[in-house]
C-alpha cells in the first residue's frame, strides 16, 4: 500500500501577530513549529498501516524551511520519503492546488490528512485536495481497515467516520481515496529529540510552489486580526485556597 500523508507544521505559541504582505498572510513570531496534532495522528496511522500491509509512506508538507522539523519527526516515526513544497500560503485553496499538482507525479493508494489545523482551523485544504484529484473522501475517520482481498486490483478500505454525538458511520470506500484522520485513531508515539536531531542528515526533497502552480494567486486577503471579544466572563473566585474551595462548593450546592 502506497500512502501519502499531508502534514502541516504549525506554531505552538505565537507573539507579535500582524497582517503582512498586503494581507496575503498573517505574520508572527514563534519558538518552533510542530506537526499539527491530527496530522501527526494521520502520520502514525500511515506508519501503522505500512507495518500491517507493507508498502511505503511519503510525507508532504507545504511551508518554508522551518517546517522541515515536521519532516524530521516524520522520518523518525517511519516515513520513507519526505517532501516539502516551498511556499508560505495562508489560503487553504492555494495549498490544495500545489499539493494536487505535486501529487500528479506520485503514485498512491491512500492519502491521509488530519481533521483541522490548529493555526488556520478551516478543515478545507484536504477536502479541496480530494476534489481536485477526483478522489472519494471521508472526514473524521476513527478507524481504517484495509480489505485483504487482493483479488480485486482496485481495492477498498472500510472506515469508521464520526457523525457527531458519538454516532459513527462505517463506510466502504474504493481506492485510491483521501481520508481525514481524527485524533486518537492510534496511540501516539514519541520521537526522542536526539533522534530528531540525527534525522537532520536525511534528505528532504523540496519543490518550488511557483513551478507547481505558476502565477498561483491567493484568493483571500487578511484585513485584520484581533483577540476574540470576551463574553459572559466568569466571576472569578479569589482568596485563600480554603475560602475559594468553600465558595466553589457553595456555588455547586446552590444550583442543585
Amino acid at each position: 500500500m502506497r500512502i501519502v500523508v499531508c502534514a502541516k507544521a504549525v506554531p505552538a505559541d505565537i507573539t507579535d501577530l500582524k497582517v503582512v504582505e498586503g494581507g496575503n498572510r498573517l505574520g508572527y513570531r514563534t519558538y518552533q513549529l510542530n506537526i499539527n496534532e491530527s496530522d501527526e495522528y494521520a502520520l502514525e496511522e500511515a506508519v501503522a498501516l505500512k507495518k500491517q500491509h507493507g508498502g511505503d509512506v511519503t510525507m508532504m508538507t507545504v511551508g518554508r524551511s522551518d517546517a522541515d522539523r515536521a519532516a524530521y519527526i516524520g522520518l523518525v516515526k517511519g516515513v520513507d520519503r519526505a517532501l516539502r513544497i516551498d511556499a508560505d500560503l495562508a489560503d487553504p485553496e492555494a495549498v490544495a492546488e500545489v499539493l494536487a499538482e505535486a501529487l500528479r507525479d506520485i503514485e498512491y493508494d491512500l492519502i491521509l490528512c488530519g481533521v483541522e489545523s490548529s493555526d488556520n482551523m478551516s478543515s478545507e485544504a484536504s477536502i479541496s485536495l480530494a476534489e481536485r484529484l477526483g478522489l472519494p473522501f471521508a472526514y473524521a475517520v476513527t478507524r481504517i481497515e484495509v480489505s485483504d482481498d487482493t483479488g480485486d486490483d482496485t481495492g477498498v478500505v472500510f472506515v469508521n467516520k464520526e457523525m457527531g454525538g458519538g454516532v459513527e458511520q462505517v463506510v466502504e470506500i474504493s481506492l485510491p481515496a483521501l481520508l481525514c484522520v481524527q485524533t486518537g485513531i492510534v496511540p501516539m508515539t514519541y520521537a526522542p529529540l536526539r533522534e530528531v536531531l540525527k534525522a537532520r542528515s536525511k534528505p528532504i526533497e523540496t519543490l518550488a510552489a511557483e513551478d507547481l502552480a505558476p502565477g498561483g494567486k491567493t484568493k483571500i486577503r487578511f484585513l485584520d486580526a484581533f483577540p476574540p471579544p470576551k463574553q459572559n466572563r466568569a466571576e472569578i473566585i479569589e482568596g485563600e485556597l480554603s475560602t475559594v474551595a468553600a465558595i466553589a462548593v457553595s456555588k455547586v450546592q446552590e444550583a442543585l
Partner: protein
Amino acid sequence: MSGDILVLPETSNGELDAVTFELLTKGRELADQAGVKLIALVLGHNLGPSVKALGSAGTDTILVADHPGLADYNAERYLNVVSRVLEDLSPSFFLLGYTYRGIELGPSLAVRCNGSAASNCIDLQVADGSVTVVRPMFSGSVHARVELQGPPPYIVSFQKGALPKIESPSARAEVVDVSSKFEEDSFRTKIAKLLQPEEGEVDITRAEVIVAVGRGIGDKENIRVAEDLARALGGTLACSRPVVDLGWLPSAYHVGISGKTVTPKVYIACGISGASQHNAGITGSKRIIAINKDPAAPIFDIAQYGIVGDLFKVVPEMTRHVKENG
C-alpha cells in the same frame, strides 16, 4: 452579486438542528440586503416533518430532494444533487454549518462550482460588493477578518452558536421538488452501517453533577482527584476529547461535538481549556464552574464561576469541604 441566498439546513435524528435557524437568520439578512430570495435546500428521505418545520421559518422557497438514495448522509451522493442545484440556481451565497456535513460539502462544492469557500466562520458581511468573514485562528486565540476575493458562489460554513437566531416567521414558503436532480451513479463510497454510541457503564447525559477533566489533568493516574469530587457530590466523571484520545478514559465519558451533549445542573470543568468543540456540548448546563491555570482560557467565557489556579490543590480541597459539610 444578484444571485439568491441558498441555505443547507442541518438535521439530526430527523429534526432540524439549531444551526439551521442561525443560518436562516444570516440568510434572511443577506437576502433582504440584496433584494433576492432566501432558499433552503433539504436532502434526505421522508422529509415531510423537516419541510413543515422550515415552511414558516423565514424562507421564500424550499427545494426538496427526497429520495431513498439520500436517506443516509453520504457526501458523494449529496454532492451529486447539491452541485446540480448550484449550477441551475447560481446563488450568490451558499450557507452551511461547520459540521461533519458542512466540512465535507463546502470545500468540494467550491472546487466543483468554481466558487469561493470560507469555513468555520463566525460572521459574514457584505458591503460595497466586498465579502468579508470573521473566523477563529490559532486555536481560537485570534479572530481574523478576511476578505474573499474569489468568484461567487461564496460557500460559507458557520460555527454552531456563532450567529444569533432571530425568529422571522413568514408566509408559507413555496415548496419545489428537486428530487430528480439525484441520479444513481457508480458511487465509490457506500454506507455499510451506522454505529450508535456504546452503552457503557455510565450515562453522562443523565447526570445532575458532572466533574469533567481535560488535558490539564496531565496523567491517567491523576483522574482520581476529579473522581473523588464527583463521588462526594453524587455526580459523574466526564472528560474532553484529548483525554479519550490519550486513552485515559473510554469514549462513553467524552463531552463535546464528537461525543455527548450534556445538560447537568452543575458542570465542573477541571483543566479543560474550552475549545469550541468541547463547549458546544455543555451549553445546556445550568451552572458551569471552571478551574484552570490559564486566566485566558476560553472556558472562562462560558462558565459562570471560575477559579484560576492549580486543580490539584483546588479540587481536593473542594472534596474535603463537601465531605466535612455534608
